[in-house]
């Protein structure tokens, strides 16, 4: 019954749009939901380094190389920031990574698709970071303080990435015929998985209920997806590329685009681990983590030695 009071106070605080901080009381379910969502977000930033990392060594100009490297480094920074936010909820980074490796924790399925030509570096920035921004702008108002503040910071960098990606796409689209082919092909491959980033339709989305009431999530999957479509379709037109959806049509009455249906069977398959790069991405991460164990152990051992030397002195 004490809990009932606490719960009411908690909900009242959320309804007043005050942030919940790590030291505040929170329902176990709220904590659990946040750990799941923040860690999934963190893992996505980190696993997302791989598809773009695939092109670092082949970047076609020195400028393109440093822009890409710096972008991927930003994503690593986002991952780090989010792991720290998750840790404030009482879970360690090691545990979070174990969950990633065991498959218990997910990351965004978009990163289970391969990057096959240089235009993918444009398409990923433009569409994947673009979709992430729509989500994250909404999450700036999320009720958990550290997550909300993290999003404010991360969003600034994501919109920079989005512009850079669009710039690559635009350059490719007005380049040689070969470059234009790469650009359209990248858009064709990445468009549908990018729409999938917003998750299932609201009617099929099991985690939305409490998340809305607790203001962890502020807008539904379908609302966010629609926002993304409405801003992106025109951007494609401007640079002379075509979104690969024959049903995409402007709806005058609704003031938004109607669009075709996502292939949900494929979507679910990739979520369940059966996508083109699921195994590769996890293996890559595990390998780096395992090969780095002796380094992390050494750092810990060294720090301990220094500590005890200090105590003796």
């Amino acid at each position, binding site marked *: 019954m004490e809990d009932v009071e606490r719960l009411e106070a908690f909900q009242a605080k959320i309804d007043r749009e005050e942030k919940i901080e790590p030291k505040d009381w929170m329902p176990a379910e709220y904590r659990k939901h946040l750990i799941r969502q923040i860690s999934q977000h963190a893992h996505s930033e*980190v696993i997302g*380094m*791989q598809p773009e*990392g695939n092109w*670092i*060594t*082949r*970047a*076609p*100009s*020195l*400028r*393109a*190389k*440093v822009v890409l*490297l*710096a972008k*991927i*480094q930003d994503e*690593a*920074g986002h*991952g*780090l920031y989010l*792991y720290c936010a998750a840790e404030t909820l009482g879970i360690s980074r090691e545990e979070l990574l174990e969950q990633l490796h065991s498959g218990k924790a997910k990351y965004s399925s978009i990163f289970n698709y391969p990057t096959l030509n*240089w235009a993918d570096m444009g398409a990923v920035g433009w569409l994947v970071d673009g979709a992430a921004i729509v989500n994250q702008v909404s999450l700036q108002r999320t009720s958990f303080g550290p997550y909300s503040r993290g999003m404010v910071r991360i969003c600034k960098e994501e919109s920079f990435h989005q512009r850079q990606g669009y710039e*690559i796409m635009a*350059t*490719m689209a007005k*380049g*040689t015929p*070969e*470059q234009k082919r790469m650009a359209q092909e990248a858009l064709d491959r990445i468009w549908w998985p990018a729409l999938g980033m917003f998750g299932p339709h609201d009617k099929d989305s099991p985690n939305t209920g409490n998340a809305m009431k607790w203001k962890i999530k502020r807008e539904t999957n379908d609302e966010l997806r629609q926002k993304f479509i409405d801003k992106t379709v025109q951007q494609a037109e401007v640079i002379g590329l075509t979104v690969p959806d024959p049903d995409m049509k402007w709806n005058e009455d609704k003031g938004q685009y109607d669009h075709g249906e996502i292939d949900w069977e494929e979507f679910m398959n990739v979520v369940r681990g059966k996508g083109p790069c699921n195994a590769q991405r996890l293996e*890559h*991460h595990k*390998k*780096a983590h395992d*090969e*780095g*164990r*002796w*380094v*992390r*152990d*050494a*750092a810990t*051992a*060294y720090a301990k*030695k220094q500590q005890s030397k200090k105590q003796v002195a």
Partner: protein
Amino acid sequence: MNTKKALFEYCIRIGDNSMILGHRLSELCSRGPILEEDIAITNISLDLFGQCRNILTYAGEVEGKGRNEDDLAYHRPEHEFRSVLLTEQPNGHFGTTMARQMLFSVFHYYFYKELSKSNDVHLAAFAAKSLKETMYHMRHSSEWIIRLGDGTEESHEKMQEGLNKMWSYRHELFEKDAVDEHLIELGIAVDTAKFKDAYEKQLEEIISRATLEIPEEGWRATGGRIGHHSEYMGHILAVFQSLARAYPDAKW
């Protein structure tokens, strides 16, 4: 000796070292032992590519044939590259990567410190800026050598192994030829012999603090300056230049 030609040659030696080592480090992105370290290694790679772009652009200007940084990075054949073999060596494990970095960065530190007094205004400014970055690279790699050397038994062994592998590649950094002599006389280039002792002393200090042994001398690497590289170099360029060369008409 034609000063313009010598200066061009001098610049690409500096630029190629940064480019190839920057490339090796860029291969490690998303492969760090811990996320913080992934970020740190990418940082160093970015610094080196920044240095490379600055100095290759300048080299192109000095040469006066209209070549820009990308012409020099992407459209030169292997035998025209001037990187030292140390920079070309594979990353190996983290200890090897750090040994390579430390041997290079300590050199770079002394080198830039001297170069910042160059009579060539561009080189002096470039060196002063690069020196700040290099101080961080030097500290970062030295600290890791000490940590790994004095960490666990396993890390001690691995660090020693990495250091042994890279050790004798350092001599090539101090090679001197007619290009150097000519530019040293003009007060443009650095006389590296001046700081060889300080360099060696600093290495000994780091190695001792890391509780490691000074390795035995092996093959003294040489050849980079006349375009005789390691076997790795051809593969590095095959990857690095592949896209730019496949579509030479494209603008990116």
